[in-house]
């Protein structure tokens, strides 16, 4: 990363030059630095340079109790913290062999889909703004604000929610929560129509996106693309449908697939995902089971406040979990889920103590970024901006 003693790319011929793009560049969506070797305005070679946001989260995780890692996972992908929470807690639950009550599972699915919507809204707004369509950004953030209020209502936080806990949820949803979600879901399809009115038929937008930054299905698979970026190249694979987790097998939804593999196809796929996520969230809301939101596992799950005040045992368990954590049987798991950007995976190794021996996050943006040079080489500098927007990277997740 950073301060390279000598240039990474050497000009192969006299006529090319090296252009440095980022890390302070509004359309690199964070602190991404791109080294471009250009011939006139055409990119001959490109090399991403990352690590500016490296905080060593994986190392920090090894020094924390299992339950203390949950807030750290929020900070990896700050556009969909609950999806990261979900992946982590599911991995630990798998290690523990813990069964989660249905209400907690359905809540998780509903909130994960709302997070997908809010993450895609940020993508849509910033992507359109990169291309030059300013007003879409304002519309998208208007709806995102509603969603942030919903997260605040349920977890007390707008962004770093830490709402999913090992063994269930942090709290029961408050009164009036489901009505608020319902209200949002009822009006949301109209809002998507509104965005599409602004963009889908827009000549300038189409011209900037169609045929740009193409990648074929074979290349995409080889380079590690996942999620909507891969589905836009014609690979019909979605972990939610094909390897269901967290009760996704109970929901009916379509997986949008396109064949062109260009920026436009990725745009079409994601916009359709907005609608499909709303469908899933609506089904989860309508079929929300009643019952507890925490698993029956006193050594792992913090007891209710009421029990703590009246029962000695609950108080002891609470004290034990908070001060010593809980031990996790030896073993290793790899839990993958479909994040808004692709395959999010947690690889956790336990040595039988209260702290993980190793936590590795397979972040979708990290792998997707590798595809960027292939997409951009041979194209113009202006197309780089469109390509970066289309793979929807989050630098917090790349650098960790």
């Amino acid at each position, binding site marked *: 990363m950073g301060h390279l003693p000598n240039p990474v790319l050497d000009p192969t011929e006299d006529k090319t030059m090296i252009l440095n793009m980022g890390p302070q560049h509004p359309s690199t969506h964070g602190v991404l630095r791109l080294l471009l070797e250009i011939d006139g305005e055409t990119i001959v070679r490109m090399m991403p340079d990352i*690590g500016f946001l490296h905080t060593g989260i*994986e190392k920090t995780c090894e020094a924390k109790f299992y339950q203390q890692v949950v807030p750290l996972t929020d900070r990896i992908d700050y556009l969909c913290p609950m999806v990261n929470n979900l992946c982590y807690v599911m991995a630990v639950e798998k290690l523990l062999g813990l069964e989660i009550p249905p209400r907690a599972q359905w809540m998780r699915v509903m909130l994960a889909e709302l997070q997908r919507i809010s993450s895609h809204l940020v993508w849509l707004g910033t992507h359109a703004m990169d291309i030059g369509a300013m007003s879409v950004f304002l519309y998208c953030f208007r709806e995102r604000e509603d969603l942030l209020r919903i997260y605040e209502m349920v977890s007390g936080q707008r962004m770093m929610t830490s709402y999913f806990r090992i063994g269930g949820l942090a709290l029961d949803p408050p009164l009036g929560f489901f009505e608020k979600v319902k209200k949002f879901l009822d009006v949301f399809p109209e809002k998507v129509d509104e965005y599409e009115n602004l963009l889908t038929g827009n000549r300038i937008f189409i011209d900037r996106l169609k045929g740009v930054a193409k990648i074929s299905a074979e290349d995409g698979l080889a380079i590690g693309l996942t999620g909507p970026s891969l589905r836009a190249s014609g690979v019909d694979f979605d972990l939610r449908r094909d390897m269901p987790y967290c009760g996704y097998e109970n929901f009916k939804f379509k997986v949008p697939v396109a064949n062109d593999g260009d920026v436009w196809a990725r745009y079409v796929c994601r916009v359709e995902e907005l609608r499909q996520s709303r469908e899933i969230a609506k089904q989860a809301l309508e079929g929300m089971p009643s019952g507890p939101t925490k698993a029956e596992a006193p050594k792992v799950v913090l007891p209710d406040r009421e029990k703590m005040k009246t029962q000695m045992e609950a108080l002891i368990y609470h004290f034990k979990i908070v001060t010593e954590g809980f031990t996790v049987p030896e073993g*290793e798991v790899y839990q993958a889920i479909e994040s808004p950007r692709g395959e999010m995976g947690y690889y956790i190794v336990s040595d039988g103590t209260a702290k993980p021996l190793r936590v590795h996050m397979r972040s979708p943006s990290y792998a997707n970024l590798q595809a960027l040079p292939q997409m951009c080489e041979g194209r113009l500098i202006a197309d780089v901006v469109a390509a970066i927007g289309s793979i929807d990277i989050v630098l917090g997740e790349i650098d960790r």
Partner: protein
Amino acid sequence: MPLTPAITDLEQLKDHAIVADLLAWNAEAVQSARFDRDELTIYIARESIREACDRLKAQGLADFLSDLTCADFYPREPRFEMAYHLLSMKRKERVRLKVVLGGDDATVESITPMWPSANFFEREVFDLFGIRFLGHPYLRRIMMPEDWEGHPLRKDYPVEGYR
């Protein structure tokens, strides 16, 4: 789901398609296998990891490299365990290949030539664990500054860093 004891006997896992295929290909390369928490782990001899990946890819048993990482079991020796998470989108199945590496000779063949997606993952492991990948096209630090000393994710590297 409640935990069931792990199956660690290679004989019992013989019927699994991936284990069977690898045994048929090169029984010496397969050191051991474990089926635990619905996940299959196969320990492969260090020299054979690239060919094993090649084989699974050619046989259509894995078509995607999900993840590649490492774990440090210091002070145990051999201390490093590389983990390759392969996915078959067709069969909807995952498998984890593992390679054990000693601390004094932490080198393994790179799989970047056959799976370009391994490029960044291997650079990350090189940067944070100090494991060398033979045949990697561009093995340089990716997260830490170029002139950084030490490999932060090793267990003998303090969490707060050296001060």
